[in-house]
């Protein structure tokens, strides 16, 4: 007779039975809790809230005492197995559960129980510990302590898969620094992992691949020692596993090989292995499960920043394949996010990839993803857009400045997730560099006003990215647009942003001013608004510029102001010579002596504009500059290594000679 669910005790009832004096009742309740929570995240949460974890941890602890007192073995073992299994399940893929298990003090008890003589107990305990180590919340394992290393080795040497698997997962979770990686290598751990690769079971092979990748990460020294001649050709065993029959093994092997490639320029650089990796990863996309979800992330790690690989991937029809998968729809959010990021990486540098992307009409699908319910997907869609909109050809044609893209993108400015906001701003920054007359579309859908709002955000990354987008928006825009932006921003907001606590915000604010005042002379009045608020802010910021980029943008802003009329030039002069404290030197000389050639260039350009022969006040200004030692400083730069600087220096000196200087 098929069973049915009858007379199920309520969770709170079950919990009270956990503290029962009768062992029969207690163990049955324990088993019931375990069976209810396995696979059931919702139940894990509700039992957690009722305080189940400390109760179960308590049973574990009591049972250990019973073991030491040699009480009733069978019963005790049963308690140990069930409580360990329950704790393991709480910790499985559930961070709140991991935290609760750790808070309940069960961790040291679980470790002790690894030495228990009963196999089932050890299995249950090892599994529970492995669940904990799969979480970021796991306690850090100190590999550098001798006895810890010995313990780890004993785990890896165990015959039991559950225990050796635990050893591997400890490495995968906790090994972080080059020092730790080297310590593991010196202790012979890699040799052990390699033997598990070749002779171990499926789960041991997979666990080894993950651990090896962790030890190799960013450590060319360990890699070359491992792959060196003494150990035979261990890299070949990993390469073989990339063609294994099990998809998960193939994926993990590829990930390991990619870690090796990225860390060390000597290994796996031939075109054969590159092509193989691309094909295996693209084929893994067809896997319907978790392996297929993770494959695009591995693909990204392979091709990111690497034009040669992007080209090979293009030839392997990667973009078509990704397109095919997105078109299918109803993707797991992780997979969707991965594919979008992979497309972003593909299109990050090569115009050929962007052309392929656009020709396949993938853009519409990406625009859809902007409104996805999952934040990771939305952010990934924006990052993908940012890559594709680097296509100057299409930007110039006004391809992206249309409502299908702009409206959902602007909506993301108000997204609850900061990372989505920042990603949306990044894509916007490219799109608004539109060389057609369609920038007004952006204003019409409220985008410009939103950007100004975001410039007031509490998050500095949001502020600086909003300013970046505004900076690009006003780049070579018409006067009307610029005036619109300025009146929305106001002088007081802009000047406070110039004086923002974050250097990245300061830099973008100054760059925004630079672009605003560039061009028409009327626009220069912006910096004089409200008693010269902005000009004053620029001056103060330049005196205490914390990095070259701030100086560069500030000087170019001043340079643009100085391209105006006499009044403007005099105002700039005054700024350059304002003393601060006991500094005798104007920041101008400091900038001229900077290591950064762009900063030197910007500063000399400003001097060029200030000493332009056609302006009546030029000789006077030149005199002041001479007296401040700036002209002689410039004379010393006649042979500056940077061509731009050299040319502008000559212009200044030429102009100064026009006034009878020698």
């Amino acid at each position, binding site marked *: 007779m*098929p*069973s049915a669910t009858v007379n199920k005790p309520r969770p709170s009832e079950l919990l009270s039975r956990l503290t029962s004096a009768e062992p029969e009742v207690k163990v049955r309740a324990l088993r019931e809790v375990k069976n209810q929570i*396995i*696979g059931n995240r*919702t139940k894990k949460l509700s039992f957690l809230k009722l305080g189940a974890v400390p109760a179960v941890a308590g049973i574990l602890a009591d049972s250990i005492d019973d073991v030491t007192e040699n009480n009733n073995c069978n019963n005790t073992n049963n308690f140990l197995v069930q409580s360990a*299994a329950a704790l393991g399940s709480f910790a*499985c893929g559930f961070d709140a559960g991991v935290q609760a298990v750790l808070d309940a003090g069960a961790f040291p008890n679980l470790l002790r129980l690894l030495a228990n003589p009963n196999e089932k107990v050890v299995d249950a305990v090892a*599994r529970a510990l492995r669940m904990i180590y799969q979480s970021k919340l796991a306690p850090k394992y100190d590999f550098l302590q001798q006895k810890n290393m010995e313990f780890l080795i004993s785990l890896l040497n165990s015959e039991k898969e559950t225990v050796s698997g635990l050893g591997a997962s400890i490495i995968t979770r906790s090994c972080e620094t080059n020092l730790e990686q080297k310590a593991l290598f010196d202790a012979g751990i890699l040799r052990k992992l390699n033997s598990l690769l070749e002779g171990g079971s499926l789960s041991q092979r997979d666990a080894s691949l993950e651990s090896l990748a962790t030890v190799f990460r960013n450590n060319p020294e360990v890699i070359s020692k491992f792959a060196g001649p003494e150990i035979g050709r261990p890299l070949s065993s990993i390469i073989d596993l990339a063609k294994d029959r099990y998809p998960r093994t193939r994926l993990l092997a590829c990930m390991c090989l990619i870690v090796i490639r990225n860390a060390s320029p000597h290994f796996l650089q031939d075109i054969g292995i590159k092509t193989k990796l691309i094909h295996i990863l693209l084929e893994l996309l067809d896997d319907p499960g978790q392996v297929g979800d993770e494959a695009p992330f591995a693909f990204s790690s392979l091709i990111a920043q690497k034009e040669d690989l992007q080209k090979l991937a293009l030839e392997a029809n990667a973009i078509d394949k990704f397109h095919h998968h997105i078109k299918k729809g109803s993707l*797991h959010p992780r997979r969707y996010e991965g594919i979008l990021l992979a497309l972003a990486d593909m299109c990050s540098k090569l115009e050929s990839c962007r052309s392929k992307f656009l020709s396949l009409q993938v853009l519409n699908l990406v625009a859809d993803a902007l409104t996805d319910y999952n934040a990771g997907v939305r952010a990934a869609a924006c990052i993908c857009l940012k890559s594709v909109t680097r296509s100057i050809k299409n930007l110039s044609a006004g391809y992206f400045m249309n409502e299908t893209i702009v409206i959902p993108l602007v909506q993301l400015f108000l997204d609850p997730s900061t990372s989505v906001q920042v990603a949306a701003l990044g894509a916007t920054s490219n799109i608004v560099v539109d060389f057609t007359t369609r920038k007004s579309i952006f204003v019409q859908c409220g985008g410009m006003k939103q950007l100004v709002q975001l410039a007031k955000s509490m998050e500095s990354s949001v502020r600086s990215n909003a300013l970046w987008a505004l900076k690009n928006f006003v780049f070579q825009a018409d006067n009307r647009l610029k005036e619109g932006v300025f009146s929305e921003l106001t002088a007081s907001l802009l000047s406070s942003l110039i004086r923002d606590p974050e250097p990245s915000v300061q830099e973008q604010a100054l760059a925004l001013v630079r672009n605003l005042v560039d061009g028409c002379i009327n626009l220069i009045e912006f910096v004089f608004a409200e008693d010269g608020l902005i000009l004053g802010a620029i001056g103060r910021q330049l005196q205490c510029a914390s990095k070259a980029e701030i100086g560069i943008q500030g000087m170019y802003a001043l340079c643009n102001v100085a391209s105006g009329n006499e009044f403007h030039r005099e105002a700039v002069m005054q700024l350059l010579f304002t003393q601060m404290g006991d500094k005798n030197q104007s920041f101008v000389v400091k900038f001229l002596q900077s290591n950064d050639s762009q900063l030197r260039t910007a500063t000399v350009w400003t001097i060029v504009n200030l000493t332009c022969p056609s302006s009546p006040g030029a000789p006077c200004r030149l005199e002041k500059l001479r007296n401040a030692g700036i002209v002689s400083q410039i004379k010393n730069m006649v042979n500056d290594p940077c061509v731009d600087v050299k040319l502008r220096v000559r212009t200044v000196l030429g102009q100064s000679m026009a006034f009878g200087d020698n």
Partner: protein
Amino acid sequence: MASSKKLISREEWEKRLNNVKIRKEDTNKLVMNFLVTEGYVEAAEKFRMESGTHPDIDLATITDRMAVKKAVQCGNVEDAIEKINDLNPEILDTNPQLFFQLQQQRLIELIRNGKVEEALEFAQEELAPRGEENQSFLEELERTISLLVFEDTSNCPVGELLDISQRLKTATEVNAAVLTSQSHEKDPKLPSLLKMLIWAQNQLDKKAAYPCINDLSNARLEDPTF
């Protein structure tokens, strides 16, 4: 049209077949692999005694696995779940698809027994959260719930869910999951070999006429026809 196919007589074919040497141990291993994977414990034990072939899995674990499979086949899903969790709690904790399938089966059994109220309660408490946790289950969930709507379940569009074949499908999935967790391959090798035989014959068909095997169950050679 003249055939460009080569003709191979039965005599010649059988001569060639006799020249192929296959080791007894290899065929024994194939048989043992089949018995063990499919779960025929007693047969495997007997075979071991008679042939001396070592099973690549502990026969004791087979008994446990078969108990699980049988429970599913009989519709005792709750019992099956408890047994799987005793074997290895990780299986259902890390396999949401399988867990959902088992709970779906539980719901089907409740509906089959006419326990409508309990079925609704179960669906709400146990299955709905699965749909919340994972959107890909929603469609299947809706299909299963719709069983409750039809008076004549044997004729409704989702009637196949009530079929015994659904239980068998789930039982096979469970068997495979347990085998994989024990680091054993979930499919026996023998069927794959037979598939390869059929494929090879299909390939050869394009080039030759020869005595082929059409009935796998008796492996009889049938004379070539033009």
